[in-house]
């Protein structure tokens, strides 16, 4: 079959205009599909940034919470109850809330403030500069050095600003695994300082972060928390809950799905149409090959090879183009939320396989129907 494959390859690539059209169609379809799904993956990833960055194994929350930024404060007794639950190694409160920072130049900037348990500092970020113990110093705050860092005028250690008329001093610069979704800088301080500096509701604990003694204890902990009327989720479950919220309750998921389908249909139309024209132009030649002595299955293999080769080449180019665009975009816009995951690549590959299958099906049908006798008759 090697000879026929080489023949098919030459027939395909030597028709430069058609080959280029096919590649352009599939490349852009893949580019758009991966771009859309990557943006979605990026949004989902960033929407769970708090959960990922703090790294707690169990998150306890009000059952109405569907994403990390819309927390509903928990009564203090829940923390006590969780701490006294069999199988809980430890449990700590977490404050999470929004605030306005008045910068040195007099301008205001919205921020997210995370208040960590005073005694354990559980969930503290890795420091780039400064000492974690300085968080206990008077007015001490740690600034996350991410894409939003510049919005605070890129503060250094010792920089001062105001939060709710309270003096704040930068005592550390930190890094986190995942940046936030909403484009606001993040500050870390202690739980008690957070509730002292910021206006609060009756209850102040956004989440309780718990560590089970063993993984086997998790179901029992969940059950106890449920009996209190609250919800305990593992880190993965909470991330999934947030993803489901953005997918199904915000319209983002549907919009991305529609755009991905449109990209797929555009790719399918362009490549299907071009491949059909390619086959049509060569149809009599395929008929001549049949007359000379080519078996139908050899012609089918040739067409399948052409469709597969074009699709996979377009797939590679599309992925490459998407990677390039995302890399360039992130270099220029650090906030750009796009993340190419294996799932994105798999979805795009699946769609490309469908494009190849449909295109070759059209071609194969045509070629199988042409009779060598038609060549004489024409």
């Amino acid at each position, binding site marked *: 079959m090697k000879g026929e494959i080489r*023949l098919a390859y*030459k027939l395909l690539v*030597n*028709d430069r205009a058609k080959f280029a059209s096919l590649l352009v169609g599939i490349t852009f379809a893949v580019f758009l599909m991966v771009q859309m799904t990557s943006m979605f993956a990026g949004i989902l990833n960033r929407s769970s940034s708090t959960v990922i960055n703090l790294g707690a194994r169990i998150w306890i929350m009000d059952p109405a919470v569907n994403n990390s930024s819309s927390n509903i404060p928990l009564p203090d007794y829940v923390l006590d109850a969780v701490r006294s639950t069999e199988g809980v190694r430890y449990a700590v409160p977490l404050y999470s809330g929004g605030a306005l920072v008045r910068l040195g130049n007099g301008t205001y900037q919205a921020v997210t403030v995370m208040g960590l348990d005073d005694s354990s500092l559980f969930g503290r970020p890795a420091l780039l500069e400064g000492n974690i113990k300085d968080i206990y110093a008077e007015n001490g705050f740690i600034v996350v050095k991410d894409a939003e860092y510049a919005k605070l005028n890129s503060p250094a250690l010792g920089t001062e600003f105001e939060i709710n008329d309270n003096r704040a001093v930068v005592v550390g610069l930190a890094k986190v695994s995942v940046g936030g979704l909403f484009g606001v800088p993040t500050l870390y301080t202690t739980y008690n300082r957070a509730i002292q500096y910021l206006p609060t509701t009756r209850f102040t604990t956004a989440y309780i972060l718990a560590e089970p003694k063993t993984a086997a204890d998790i179901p029992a902990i969940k059950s106890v928390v449920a009996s209190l009327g609250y919800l305990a989720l593992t880190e993965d479950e909470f991330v999934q809950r947030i993803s489901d919220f953005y997918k199904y309750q915000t319209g983002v998921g549907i919009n991305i799905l529609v755009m991905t389908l449109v990209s797929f249909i555009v790719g399918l139309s362009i490549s299907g149409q071009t491949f059909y024209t390619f086959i049509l132009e060569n149809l*009599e*030649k395929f008929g001549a090959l049949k007359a000379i*002595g*080519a*078996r139908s299955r050899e012609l089918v293999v040739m067409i399948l090879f052409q469709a597969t080769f074009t699709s996979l080449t377009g797939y590679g180019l599309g992925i490459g183009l998407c990677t390039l665009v995302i890399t360039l975009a992130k270099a220029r816009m650090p906030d750009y939320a796009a993340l190419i995951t294996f799932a994105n690549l798999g979805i795009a590959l699946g769609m490309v396989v469908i494009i190849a299958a449909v295109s070759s099906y059209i071609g194969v049908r045509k070629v199988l129907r042409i009779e060598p006798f038609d060549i004489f008759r*024409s």
Partner: protein
Amino acid sequence: MAALQPQQEQSPDRYAGAAILARGVSKWFGSGEARTQALREVSFEAAFGEMLYIVGPSGSGKTTLLSVISGILRPDQGSVAVEGQDIWAMKSDGITDFRLRTIGFVFQDFHLFPRLTTVENVAIPLILKKVDWGEAIDRAMKYLRIVGLERRAHLPPVKLSGGEQQRVAIARAIVSQPDILIFDEPTASLDGDTGRNIVAFVRDEVLGPHRCIVTVTHDSRIYEYAHRILHMEDGRLKGVENGHQSDGN
């Protein structure tokens, strides 16, 4: 020009009998009221070393007959033996293989792939016979040299004149050294002189004692090159005429 001739194989007896033997071949097309009979009880024989023409007006059945004897169109009645083998008794893949081994085709419009080079076009039958690509190209180049187109080998066919394309088609038809050659209107796309030159080349260099060439043509200017001419009309064989070649050869 020995290279243009089929290699004499193990059995010289192979060329002793008829190259093609058609007996009572009939063919219908369509169904119901649209059913028409394209061939009516056609019988004839073609010998090795013979250049046989099938002529007749449009719709007389000559293309249908050509397709039936070359294993492309199954007749509804009758039998066709090529080199003593009843081709329509074979299975579909068997007929395809038999065509590949035994029959070479030169089509009216040549049907050369415009996206392949000339030498790659010539190599196609060898590639279908699973000959290694490099060897197929070497052998195709040899045949291009014989038909005088070696220097055009790496050009696409569209860069060649009609006569040159016809010679490429001939080289492709004979590159696998088939015993039977089928020419469909070989001069239809050529001017008078070029057509005659091509047919003269075929008669002088391609035919040989171990090959039979069957040609369908409308072109009376090339009748002089035939050994025999079968006249078709309304699907029937109306008569057989000896060509000028039969006197001269």
